[in-house]
């Protein structure tokens, strides 16, 4: 009938030596015990309230007992609430875990550290009703703030002026471990599956924001120190891309720190110290990275894209710079979109090609590496111009008619010379097995495009007879060479005209057809791969 069972009373009675307790007494005592316990607890709750707490501690019960002039229960005092354990097998039975302690151990144990002394710190909970985002305050929706830019700026300004808080930055243990793990993976196991997983994690996990300043600083540092360690550079660029992809990270404030290292990986003179290092691929990758940064943050930082393009253009137009730098610059510009190409590359195309041509010729450039590099740059240029023209053609479909005939003519000539020269060029290639090997191994840039193009030509029935077999790529590649020479030599007047067309390429209403024609002057039919099919049919 009461919460206290009569057995409990009996047990207690026995424990103090009363054995013959009558059941009547037990029945009277049990409810009274419950009443007294409730009374004490009521007082204990009062003491708890006056100690400004919401959880009852043994101290409160002691104080309540003192209030009633009862001896407190000794041995249970503790600043924290007691930890109860559930008894195994019972649903509602709890006990305090009270371990036996060896007396010897207690004596021999070193003195525990004194608990930290109480102290008071001050901070602003609110400034004119707005809570500043300092670590002492409860986290507000941190990412919701930037939406109303004005307001947050306002509070930040006030913060800077009014108070100088010692802002401590706390990194949780987990985050520190995470950071170290990422660094280690990037440094040592950038090829592993684990690293790929890490990249995914960097790109998707929320809560990494506190690490961003550390990462940006570290990356900047690492890139400058490890310019000749190609795998590491590539790994870091991947990390950068993942960070940029992460929707939970607010990376804008750190972009200025990040951009120099990214640009380095795009237009550095040397990336990696071995010739086997495929730094072209890194440059391509970085070019896309730069483009994505511009796309995402260009509207926030108005001078971001101008600064990038200026750097790239500078690298592109400086003849003293290495070809690899040119390549990076072209790729970077191309990745920024056809408009950039039209504005910046096409006007400079003709003089640049003149510069580039001797480098590509077997006769003039004996160094194979150099020549190969030149071809790479050429491929990049072609790609950039092709992308541009493709874009143009799509936009100005109807403007294609007038120059068709002229091009047709040129093409015929090209075709003829092609046939003549083809044998020679294949011979040339045969004589140089290493070159051939390199070329066939080749990169994404030029060759696949050409082979595609030839396929297409085959379909349209143009020059399909001229090409075929295993050396399709090679032949079409080498074929450009004479074309170039020829257009340079034979139709000098026309070239002048073409360059003038190109120099006006930035004009919006520029006739796409004429542009295309002039580009043909430089690139020949390899440009076909960039023209959409229906348009192509006009030419053929």
């Amino acid at each position, binding site marked *: 009938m*009461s919460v206290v069972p009569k057995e409990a009373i009996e047990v207690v009675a026995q424990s103090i030596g009363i054995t013959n307790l009558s059941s009547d007494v037990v029945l009277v005592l049990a409810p009274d015990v419950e*009443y007294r316990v*409730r009374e004490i607890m009521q007082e204990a709750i009062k003491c708890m309230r*006056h100690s400004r707490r919401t959880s009852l501690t043994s101290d409160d019960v002691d104080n309540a007992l*003192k209030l009633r002039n009862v001896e407190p229960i000794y041995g249970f005092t503790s*600043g924290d609430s007691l930890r109860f354990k559930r008894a195994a097998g019972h649903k509602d039975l709890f006990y305090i875990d009270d371990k036996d302690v060896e007396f010897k151990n207690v004596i021999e144990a070193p003195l525990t550290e004194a608990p930290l002394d109480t102290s*008071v*710190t*001050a901070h602003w909970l609110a400034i004119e009703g707005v809570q500043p985002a300092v670590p002492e305050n409860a986290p507000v929706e941190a990412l919701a703030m930037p939406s109303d830019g004005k307001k947050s700026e306002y509070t930040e300004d006030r913060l800077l002026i009014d108070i100088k808080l010692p802002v401590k930055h706390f990194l949780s243990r987990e985050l520190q471990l995470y950071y170290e793990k990422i660094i280690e993976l990037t440094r040592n196991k950038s090829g592993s599956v684990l690293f790929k997983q890490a990249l995914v994690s960097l790109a998707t996990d929320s809560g990494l924001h506190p690490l961003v300043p550390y990462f940006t600083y570290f990356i900047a540092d690492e890139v400058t120190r490890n310019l000749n360690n190609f795998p590491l550079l590539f790994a870091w660029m991947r990390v950068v891309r993942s960070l940029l992809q992460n929707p939970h990270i607010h990376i804008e404030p750190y972009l200025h720190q990040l951009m120099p290292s990214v640009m380095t990986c795009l237009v550095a003179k040397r990336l990696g110290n071995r010739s086997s290092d495929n730094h072209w691929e890194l440059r391509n990758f970085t070019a896309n990275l730069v483009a994505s940064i511009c796309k995402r943050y260009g509207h926030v930082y108005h001078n971001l894209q101008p600064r990038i393009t200026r750097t790239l253009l500078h690298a592109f137009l400086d003849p003293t710079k290495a070809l690899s730098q040119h390549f990076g610059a072209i790729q970077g510009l191309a990745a920024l979109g056809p408009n950039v190409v039209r504005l910046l590359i096409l006007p400079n195309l003709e003089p640049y090609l003149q510069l580039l041509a001797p480098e590509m010729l077997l006769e003039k450039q004996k160094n194979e590496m150099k020549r190969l590099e030149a071809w790479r740059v050429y491929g990049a240029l072609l790609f950039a111009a092709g992308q541009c023209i493709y874009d143009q053609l799509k936009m100005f479909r109807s403007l294609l008619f007038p120059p068709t005939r002229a091009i047709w003519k040129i093409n015929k000539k090209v075709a003829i010379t092609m046939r003549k020269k083809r044998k020679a060029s294949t011979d040339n290639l045969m004589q140089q097995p290493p070159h051939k090997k390199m070329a066939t191994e080749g990169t994404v840039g030029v060759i696949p495009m050409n082979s595609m193009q030839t396929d297409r030509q085959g379909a349209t029935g143009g020059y399909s007879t001229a090409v075929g077999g295993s050396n399709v790529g090679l032949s079409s590649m080498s074929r450009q060479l004479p074309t170039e020479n020829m257009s340079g030599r034979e139709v000098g007047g026309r070239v002048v005209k073409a360059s003038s067309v190109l120099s006006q390429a930035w004009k919006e209403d520029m006739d796409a057809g004429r542009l295309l024609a002039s580009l043909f002057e430089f690139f020949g039919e390899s440009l076909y791969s960039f023209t959409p099919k229906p348009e192509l049919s006009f030419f053929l």
Partner: protein
Amino acid sequence: MEEDQIEKFVAEYLKKKGFKQAEHAFQEERQHQQSKNTSSSSITTNSLSDPDLAKHILAFSELENGPARYHDGYSKFRSWTYSSLDLYKHELLRVLYPVFIHCFMDLVEKGHVQEARTFFNSFREDHEMMHSRDLQKLEGVLSPSHLGEMEFAHSLRQNKVKIKICQYSYDLLLEYLHKTKLTTMLGVINEHINFQVSPGQPSSISDDTEVVTLTGSSQDEATQINQKEIHWGLLEDSLEERLEKGGGLLSDSEKAEGETKEGELDENKKRSGEGAKQGMSIKKVKKDKGASATGKAGRPEANTVPMAPRVKPELTLPVVHTDVEKSILEDLRNRVQLSSVSLPSVSFYTFINTHNGLNCSSISHDGSLVAGGFSDSSLKIWDMAKLGQEPVGPVLQGENGTTSSEHVLGSRGGKRYTLFQGHSGPVYSATFSPLGDFLLSSSADSTIRLWSTKLNANLVCYKGHNYPVWDVQFSPVGHYFASSSHDRTARIWSMDRILPLRIMAGHLSDVDCVQWHVNCNYIATGSSDKTVRLWDVQSGECVRIFIGHRSMVLSLAMSPDGRYMASGDEDGTIMMWDLSTGRFITPLIGHTSCVWTLAFSGEGSLLASGSADCTVKLWDVASSTKVPKTEEKLTSMLTFISKGGNTNRLRSLKTLPTKSTPVYALRFSRRNLLFAAGALSKSV
């Protein structure tokens, strides 16, 4: 044959009760009666012809059927109430609770403890929401002796509950009870409920609060007390008043000579000097009033606000030093005007490494000193102005007899505090004098100690309470202070006497908090009996009883204009009261846990509340107090109920969450900067 029936019942009753002799006598009597039935039948018929008596005897026999009657009767009554007409339902539901607890106590009283338990448990859910705390108390009652011992139960038994009910509901109720012969219930209702039958429509739900607190103190008494007149106006010749005049002149001069700044400054000095002089002699005040009148004539817009009435101080007030007055006036002049659109800045003092030991905290008026009272009997004071500065000089230690104080240097230096030791029990409250040169602390050792922050020493130990002193508060002018204790009294003291000047007795349970009225003529006390009382300092009489809280009252605050009072309770409800009418204006609902502290802003437009749910909330007082008109209030209350508190949320201007730090103390500085203090607790 009715006669026979009755005789049979009587016989049965006697048998059942074990009155053997009486039964025997009764039987003999009967036979004797029967024998001479013919002769003296006139007497018996006469006596038994009274049908009422017969009914009573019948009813009595029914009543005696035992505890089951209570259970059945109550459950029938309950189901009838719940199925009654919607319009009258809430009125009838109010009757249920008193019937319930009295049925329970009747059962206990008669010794049917087991039945009482089952009865209690089967119906307690109905009342859990409104009266959970009372139920918890009653749950422990297990024997008739407990009823006598327990004050709560005792007072319930002694006093009748007053319930307002409309005529129709009353008729319905009586008709039902008579028709169904639920005499047990009728008996309980007759015995313990006092109906106030009012003609016309049933009252609205909002009046419910009066019945919520069955706190023993009879309602009649309370209303009688609340009839008394009180003067809530501000003191004559207060600093604020002087500022109004001074400020008026100042702004005039600013308008006139905005460019000539030097001249203006000089003039300012002159005028503030004048203002200070005003304080020195009362004679000058009259002259100045004339001057202010002319000043106001020049600025008619300042006069639109109706002036609060002024009252004379009942206590002899301490003389304020001129320099101090000057600085206060300067502060008041520089006060930031707060409103619902311009919220205050809040500076938060976080106690760290308290190891669950911090019991209370107090902040001085200018926020430069912070005191903490700890459960290890110590009292520590931090000088926030010196925080961060290098400590100078070696460790000071002063000791006199049983008390000591020492400066403790932090490990990193600079973070030092002054440790006051003297109490022999947990320190439950601390308060700074208005000027910050004295500190009072109250403790579980039933003493109050006065400390000097200048000398870093204990000056006086005030003994008078018999039990732990829960709260102590300096009066707004200093010198006097009030304390409240577990011994159910509040006491008024002055610094220069070791014995209390007044003892306020009347609360039915612990007095948990105390607060001075701004004009120093009244103190308010909040208690565990769920009431707030207002006491006249001069006479020591209770002048108001505020009933409406549903749990222990933990914090109080008085508005600076002296008209309103706010009180916060254990459940997180804050109530706004109108002192002159004694009625509550509106509940401010939002906190989810104990409201430890409340503070009005300097000009009374905002109320700040700090709670165990780790938030500081700012409330718009202007809109909270604007609806005291009865009709408005009703409608607003109804909409409040129907919308689930939407209107109230509008009054809550801002919630400022802390980082798992319950807020122990709040204080608006004179310039309206809000200081808050609390202990960082990891478990929350």
